[in-house]
């Protein structure tokens, strides 16, 4: 019974803090509900997020707002072509000790923080982008032959611009795979735009206030992990990811025609982990097929590579994934969410 009461309290705490964080972020970001939810789910799950949108839609503001909501260290790295790996991870400097001898000392870069905003990540060279790889996946940095553990929670929110591709370096697949979600920030509607203007006329500063700290975030993560997933739902998530592989026997017809490379096993992990948190945010204690379907786009859209034919027909990864979901669920056609 104590176990149940404790779990009940933890779930109640989760719901309360999630709602509070969402409310605070919504004070700064008008609309973009799916992006806010996706960012918070990834934050709780311990995943990283790649935000893509045209300039001015609030990518950087969203990240700053998330940073303010959480009582966590926040760093911003503006990626540029001349940014070096050491500028991200830190470097060894030579300094005099008390006896006057030269000694090396590691000075951590901006990555030693809880929340990292990697702004316009595709403007940096692949070498610098790769400096983020180890940090994003293993939460540690190796510099000067020494390995430094990063702080927990650690969360990378990268942004990139889908236009202005001159002088940019597309992120390699290995690095893309390390992002739990890729969220698309769409242009706001006229009503949302009017609201944005009125808010920013009052103040340019973010208005979100801190509602939780790092420890609470980790506790929420632990709560979410407890959510059960029945075998059928787990099998469905596996089938969805397997179906993105054209060489797989379970590949869907859409896949064989339009997908060149499928999603990695990290996609299944992201679907299930994200599904658990999504279920909790909706007041459920179990993961459903709908949760998996809802997360299919942010989880898979940056993990599948389309064939030349699909690109020629101006098909986007979202189009292909929706067609895949329709095929798997025996539906005629799903409208784009």
């Amino acid at each position, binding site marked *: 019974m104590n176990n149940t009461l*404790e*779990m009940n309290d933890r779930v109640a705490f989760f719901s309360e803090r999630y709602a509070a964080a969402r409310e605070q972020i919504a004070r700064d970001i008008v609309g973009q509900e799916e992006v806010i939810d996706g960012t918070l789910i990834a934050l709780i799950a311990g995943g990283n997020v790649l935000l893509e949108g045209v300039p001015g839609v609030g990518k950087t503001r969203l990240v700053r707002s998330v940073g303010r909501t959480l009582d966590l260290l926040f760093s911003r790295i503006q990626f540029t072509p001349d940014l070096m790996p050491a500028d991200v991870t830190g470097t060894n400097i030579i300094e005099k000790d008390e006896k006057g001898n030269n000694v090396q000392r590691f000075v951590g870069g901006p990555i030693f923080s809880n929340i990292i905003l990697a702004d316009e990540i595709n403007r940096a060279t692949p070498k610098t982008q790769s400096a983020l790889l180890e940090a994003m996946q293993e939460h540690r940095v190796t510099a000067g032959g020494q390995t430094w553990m990063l702080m927990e929670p650690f969360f990378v929110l990268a942004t990139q611009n889908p236009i202005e591709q001159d002088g940019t370096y597309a992120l390699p697949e290995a690095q893309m795979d390390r992002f739990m979600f890729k969220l698309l920030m769409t242009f706001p509607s006229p009503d949302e735009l009017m609201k944005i203007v009125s808010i920013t006329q009052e103040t340019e500063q973010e208005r979100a206030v801190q509602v939780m700290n790092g420890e609470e975030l980790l506790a929420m993560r632990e709560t979410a992990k407890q959510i*059960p997933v029945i*075998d*059928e739902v787990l099998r469905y998530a596996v089938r969805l990811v397997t179906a993105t592989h054209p060489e797989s026997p379970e590949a869907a017809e859409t896949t064989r025609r339009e997908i060149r490379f499928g999603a990695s096993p990290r996609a299944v992990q992201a679907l299930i982990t994200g599904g658990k948190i999504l*279920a909790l945010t909706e007041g459920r204690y*179990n993961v459903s*097929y709908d949760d998996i379907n809802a997360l299919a786009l942010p989880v898979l859209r940056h993990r599948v590579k389309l064939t030349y034919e699909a690109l020629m027909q101006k098909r986007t990864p979202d189009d292909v994934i929706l067609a895949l979901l329709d095929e798997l669920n025996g539906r005629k056609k799903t409208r784009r969410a």
Partner: protein
Amino acid sequence: MNRSDPMSAVIRPFRTRLVLYAAIRALLTALTAGCFAWGAAVLMGKIRQTDAGSLPWTAAAAVAAAVFCLALIVFFPSRKETARQIDALGLKERASTMLALRNDPSGIAFLQRNDALRTIDMTGTRGMRTGIRRLSVILLLLALLFAAACRLVPAAWFARAADPLDEVWEQVLEMLREEEIRLEERGEETLAGEMQDLIESLEEMDRENVLRAVGEINGTEEAAKDAARNGEADRGAMKEMLDVLEEARRALLGEEEEEAAEEGEEGQMQPGGEGEERMPGMGEEGEDGMPMPQDGEERGDENGMGPGSGEPGMDGVSRQTEPVYDPISGSVPYGDVFSAYYSEYLRDAEDGEIPFEVQEAARAYFAGLDQ
């Protein structure tokens, strides 16, 4: 799952409804199968030209009952299926998870079960899918149509056309049986035995195989002659028997009408020639050295006359003869060939083998001959 536990209590209305749907589906399937079985039994009776009696209803009831039981077993909802159907009402896998966690003592499982029970309790059974597929209904309609068609189709459609050959065979057998009785009455045991063997042989024989039957008759003739020669049978009785056998052979070969036509002819009969095609047992000489009756012989002699043409043999059996026209004299009676030539003309004209402009002249020619 204990029937008294809250999980069972909450699920029971859904399960009851699913059982009802399963029964309806099983009933539909059974009705479909029953209709097909009934129609098939009725149709079989009509094809076999027998009165099916109560067989169609018995067959339909048996098949329907068996299919109903089988279908009910197949369609009967398991607990997992019940949970799945409840989830389909928009419960987002709450019921399935509850079922999977029913023995889990953890706190989250307890919360999940409570949440599921509360949500299911608020959900009505009204929106549940019946599981009756359109295909099942279409199949039932098809089965009903099939049964109705089988009932309404006239039995005459399946009646076999009377085969004239069957009638001939029956006549021949009857004729032989009567002769066998006569022979027995006369005390001709050997001949009666031979006749009985022949009858049995013909009764077992495929009625399409006329030539074989004729061969059997010829063999019996030889046996009868041997019996007479050996003194085992009276020659008069043997001759009567040979007459009957000859009549039977002619009937089988359909030569009565031909014979009747031949009887009108005088002379100009052709005997069998060498190299002619013979049927089993045919063409052999009788005891007096005269050729035995030979059916289907081809003309071989140049003069068209042969030994025994148109004459009875020693046994008094007349031989098959055909009119032959003397090519030397060139006298061909028009009356004999007119109908054949005219038929040929009509057939060719109908087949389009005679040019249209020639047809009129040909018709005038035949009209002139006819006069």
